[in-house]
């Protein structure tokens, strides 16, 4: 087995709900609730799920843009969940993030050159000349014409802005990139350009990715292993082929069956889930998926399923696969 670059153990992120005259904490939104997974060096780990499942919160908590409530995040063996601010700053050079909305995540008052240089400046790396050289190199790497160095973000299309975002992240030579819905704001023809670019960069620079997305086809294309989240919990983790060819969790099955296929001749057997995703402030008892699950039985209402090891790197949190159940 390959070497784990990042290991997440029992990570939780709860947000307090304040209420009443004294703004007392009256409840908790369990955005991420006790999840564990690991990411191997050089691979792409896809994190997929619907809105509110906690996939973005997970990404932000890993990099400490949000402080974790509990759990460990081991990066190269070191627990970064407990590092002091200063120490974390140094580690962050190795962990960079690419955000969804290239319109909102770039400062409109900075030129492309300044935007790409900024992270190096913040970390006090290189002298001015070297930084300029690196900016040009980064622009070349992500396929932006170096002539545009003095232009502002509004002069670029969505796809080009996302390239700027990627160049910014790469300028620090990170080991791990957490990409949070990097292509979901883009049109299909542009989406494929950015996905291919990320593929190329991974090979060229030996990068490890955590790729967060709601689009199952994009996740399938780019990932080596996939984690499916539902309501702050990990429902299933497996190598890509396993998730897509032999999904085990009833939620994964429903999710895959719901994707419309661009071929009118294909009539899919669709599992239509009834109802909506429940609120993470008041999750259902037992298995969070049980009120919508077509296979739920008595135990699902009372006992939260643990992530079971089915073998061959396939993990599923569902009582159906618990051997004790018979």
């Amino acid at each position, binding site marked *: 087995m390959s070497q784990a670059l990042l290991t997440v153990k029992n990570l939780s992120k709860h947000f307090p709900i304040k209420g009443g005259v004294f703004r007392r904490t009256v409840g908790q939104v369990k955005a991420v609730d006790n999840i564990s997974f690991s990411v191997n060096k050089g691979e792409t780990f896809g994190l997929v799920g*619907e809105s509110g499942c906690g996939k973005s919160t997970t990404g932000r908590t890993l990099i400490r843009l949000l402080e974790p409530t509990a759990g460990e995040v081991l990066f190269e063996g070191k627990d970064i969940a407990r590092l002091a601010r200063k120490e974390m700053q140094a580690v962050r050079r190795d962990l960079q993030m690419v955000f969804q909305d290239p319109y909102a995540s770039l400062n409109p008052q900075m030129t492309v050159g300044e935007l790409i240089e900024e992270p190096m400046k913040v970390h006090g790396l290189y002298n001015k000349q070297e930084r300029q050289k690196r900016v040009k190199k980064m622009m070349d790497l992500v396929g932006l014409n170096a002539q545009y160095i003095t232009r502002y973000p509004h002069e670029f299309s969505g796809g080009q802005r996302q390239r700027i975002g990627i160049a910014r992240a790469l300028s620090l030579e990170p080991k791990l990139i957490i990409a949070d819905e990097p292509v979901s704001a883009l049109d299909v023809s*542009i*989406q494929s350009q950015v996905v291919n670019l990320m593929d190329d960069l991974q090979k060229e620079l030996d990068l490890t990715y955590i790729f967060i997305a709601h689009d199952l086809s994009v996740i399938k*294309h780019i990932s080596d292993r996939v984690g499916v989240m539902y309501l702050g919990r990990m429902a299933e983790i497996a190598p890509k082929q396993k998730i897509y060819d032999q999904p085990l969790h009833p939620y994964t099955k429903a999710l895959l*069956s719901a994707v*419309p296929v661009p071929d*009118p001749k294909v009539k899919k057997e669709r599992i239509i*889930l009834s109802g909506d995703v429940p609120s993470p402030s008041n999750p259902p008892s037992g298995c969070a998926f049980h009120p919508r699950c077509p296979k739920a039985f008595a135990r699902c209402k009372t006992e939260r399923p643990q992530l079971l090891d089915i073998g061959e790197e396939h993990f599923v949190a569902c009582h159906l696969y618990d051997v004790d159940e018979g």
Partner: protein
Amino acid sequence: MIDEKLLIINDLKTAFSTSMGSVTVVDDVSLYIKKKETLALVGESGCGKSMTSLSIMQLLPVNGKIMNGEIIFNNHNLVELSDKEMSKVRGNDIAMIFQEPMTSLNPVLTIGDQITEGLLLHRKLSKKEAKDRAVALLKLVGFSRAVEVMKEYPHQLSGGMRQRVMIAMAMSVDPSLLIADEPTTALDVTIQAQILELMQELKEKFDTSILLITHDLGVVAEMADRVVVMYAGEVVEEADALSLFEDPSHPYTQGLIKSVPSLDVQQERLYSIPGTVPAPNEVTVGCRFAPRCAQAWERCSKEKPSLYQRKNGHQVRCFLYELGEGTNYNESGATHS
């Protein structure tokens, strides 16, 4: 089979007056929708698909204007109707649902108030009748607790439920045409599946025609009878859904279909169309897709192709099909000059 056309658009041209002068966003678009049919209008951001639908409804932003063309619906040219007459059409014959239901619903009115408003205004029902009808409509779109939902506010509902409310409001006028502008784009896949199923059901039950505007080819394959593909304000291809996916003809349509990552086949590399969509104020002489087209030759950047006929109403705006069926410059080895 009834082939009666419900809506016919001829040479529609819609422009915006901007600080940079007049910008044409819908350029000579012609299309039709048959009774009981779902027509999908497909394209990427800025291709003019939403502006085409807003032109039909005459709900264009203040700086937008229909410059030319006609929109024939029930033997009336909608372009020539007065505001009052158009408002009647919107209340009785054509209904529209939008991508983000939260921005289309009034946050300070209850769901009940909003559904009954249209019924009281256009249908002249009594309050009691309107209320009963509203409850029936909410049940129709899948609310089991319809009576309670009547008293709730939009923020108390999830995105999927809000879209159901929008559909209930749209169906409240028994429209013969429903325009759905990216109705499921803001929704999760499992909720999208529910809404698409609901739209199919309603269409069959009430014989409604649907104009479905979307960028998602999966949704198109699932819902559409016929498809019109737009690029940079123009129609580039029109075909029935099967032909479009089996035999996509315009290089843009081919690229678009190939760009979608597949759930079934693992591709080494995703197909991508180089370059980006031209800005709406960019003046082009030849084919608008030529700068991004792998099959373009000299003529494409000098002369504008018209829509050429293939079989069964399949039309393509590309010189490759100028000489009709059986001509394929690539295979026949004809020189591109």
